[in-house]
């Protein structure tokens, strides 16, 4: 330790300055946290990347927020993860696309009043030279079969999301139909990416491979994907319905069930269904409403659509706007009560 030192008094002053800065910073930060820790009604929506990244939610949700004065916090995750966190009671409502996972979620008692909102479709995309020769085939299972054959000859690659997303679930459904159980281990032509749609699309482009994607993400990304084109589309199995499911209030009373119901009701209202139909990206319609087309909904895996829509139509989301909520929230803010620990506590005043 041969560092030359200045007078001890200076060093003391400097040390005290550091201490004061740290303490002042801490006090400022904590008071900032405290000041911003205000009770406010919000709900958490877990949804899939395809609805969030397409911009559909940014287009619909501000209307909901200003109408009901509820902040919507969106988690954009795959369907599998969305449903898992909803099972743990960490969100109020899910907007997802995987029929079997959704049905299990409801049957196990985690979700209630599952209702179909809209649909779009999946497409099989692949390299422009199309080694598997699937272009124009209207049967996705046949196309997958051809990919297996070409893949086994070492001339094609298929990239799977492998992340339990809705897209991944659909892909596995098609493989099951042709009795193929692909994995990295059994087939060298099958790559399990474990990544989101955007990443997988770019990988597919780089590797000139095949993959299954929802049309919305494809439309959003196709400018960056010069090596790829749409090869298989318009098979009935490729339809991609989205359902909305509030979390069961009996399972998780602390969740904001009223807001969840208001949100589902909002999505399936005639007005919003029209807005969904009008939502376009690069001139293409990305989602087709189906909430009030009971025949279509039944065909796409929502057999109780008519009853559920009728039920939602009887619900009164305006209850959320009732004055007791505002007053209690303001009062508690004034008295610094920590009411925000449980949003449903605030809501329960509505019913009183």
């Amino acid at each position: 330790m041969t560092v030359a030192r200045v007078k001890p008094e200076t060093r003391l002053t400097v040390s005290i300055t550091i201490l004061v800065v740290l303490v002042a910073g801490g006090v400022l930060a904590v008071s900032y946290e405290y000041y911003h820790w205000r009770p406010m009604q919000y709900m958490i929506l877990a949804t899939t990347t395809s609805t969030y990244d397409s911009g559909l939610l940014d287009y619909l949700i501000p209307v909901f927020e200003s109408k009901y004065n509820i902040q919507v916090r969106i988690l954009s995750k795959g369907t599998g993860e969305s449903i898992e966190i909803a099972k743990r009671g960490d969100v109020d409502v899910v907007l997802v696309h995987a029929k079997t996972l959704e049905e299990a979620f409801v049957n196990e008692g985690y979700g209630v009043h599952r209702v179909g909102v809209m649909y779009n479709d999946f497409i099989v995309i692949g390299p422009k030279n199309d080694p598997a020769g699937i272009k124009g085939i209207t049967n996705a299972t046949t196309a997958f079969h051809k990919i297996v054959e070409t893949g086994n000859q070492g001339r094609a690659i298929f990239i799977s999301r492998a992340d339990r997303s809705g897209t991944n679930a659909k892909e596995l459904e098609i493989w099951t139909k042709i009795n193929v159980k692909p994995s990295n281990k059994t087939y060298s032509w099958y790559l399990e990416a474990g990544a989101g749609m955007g990443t997988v699309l770019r990988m597919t482009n780089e590797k000139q491979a095949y993959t299954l994607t929802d049309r919305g993400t494809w439309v959003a990304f196709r400018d960056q994907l010069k090596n790829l084109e749409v090869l298989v589309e318009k098979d009935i199995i490729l339809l991609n319905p989205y359902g909305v499911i509030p979390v069961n209030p009996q399972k998780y009373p602390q969740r904001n069930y009223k807001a969840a119901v208001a949100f589902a009701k909002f999505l399936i209202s005639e007005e919003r269904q029209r807005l969904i139909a009008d939502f376009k990206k690069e001139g293409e319609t990305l989602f087709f409403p189906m909430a009030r087309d009971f025949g279509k909904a039944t065909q796409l895996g929502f057999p109780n659509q008519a009853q559920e829509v009728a039920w939602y139509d009887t619900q009164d989301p305006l209850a959320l706007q009732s004055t007791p909520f505002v007053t209690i929230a303001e009062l508690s803010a004034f008295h610094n009560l920590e009411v925000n620990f449980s949003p449903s506590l605030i809501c329960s005043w509505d019913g009183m």
Partner: protein
Amino acid sequence: MNPILEGLVKALWLLVSLDPEVYSIMFLSLRVSGIAVIIGAALSIPCGATIALRDFRGKRFLMSIINTLMGLPPVVVGLLVYLLLSTSGPLGPFQLLYTPTAMIIAQLIMVVPIIIGVTVSAVSAVDKGIREKVLSMGATGWQLTVTILREAKIGLLTALIVSFGAAISEVGAVMIVGGNIRWITRVLTTAIVFETELGEFGIALALGIILLLLAFIINWVLTQLQWSGLRR
């Protein structure tokens, strides 16, 4: 345009145009990591100093554990904090998940071992002779502590610099416990991941440059403090 060049231009533009979302993201990053480091320092510097100044059985074992925890992967911390704060977890009733508070907790757990570890080595490096000299001059215990911490100042500020760097550049933990919710829990690192996933490489890189700038400013201040009072 070349994405790297585009990133630089965009970074400048985002900063100059006072984009409110970018500033809210920057501010949240600073707030979460800053508070985590301040609370972490308040807890860990006394702990580290105590460990360094005392001899006890199992000290080496304890230090091995702390040194191991210094390398704790953020994503593991995130997962643990998620399971703790989840509605179904032990701290579920507080409903802290997907809030900045949850992110602070996660980063706090990350920085505590780093600050303790660096503090222990900084304080241990203070010359034993200084201790004896101060005591022989009739200093009280408090005066002794202040003297030793002052001697270890460079090391202690290194602890702050290293832990702040680790916290603000960490993405795994804040992604899991914060959820990357727009305007609420989106910080620079999660925004970078999000924009990359969207294929917006230019914006992602711009945010990366902003993150570096921010880290540089904080580190410049800390480094000034670190070397102030010492001749170069």
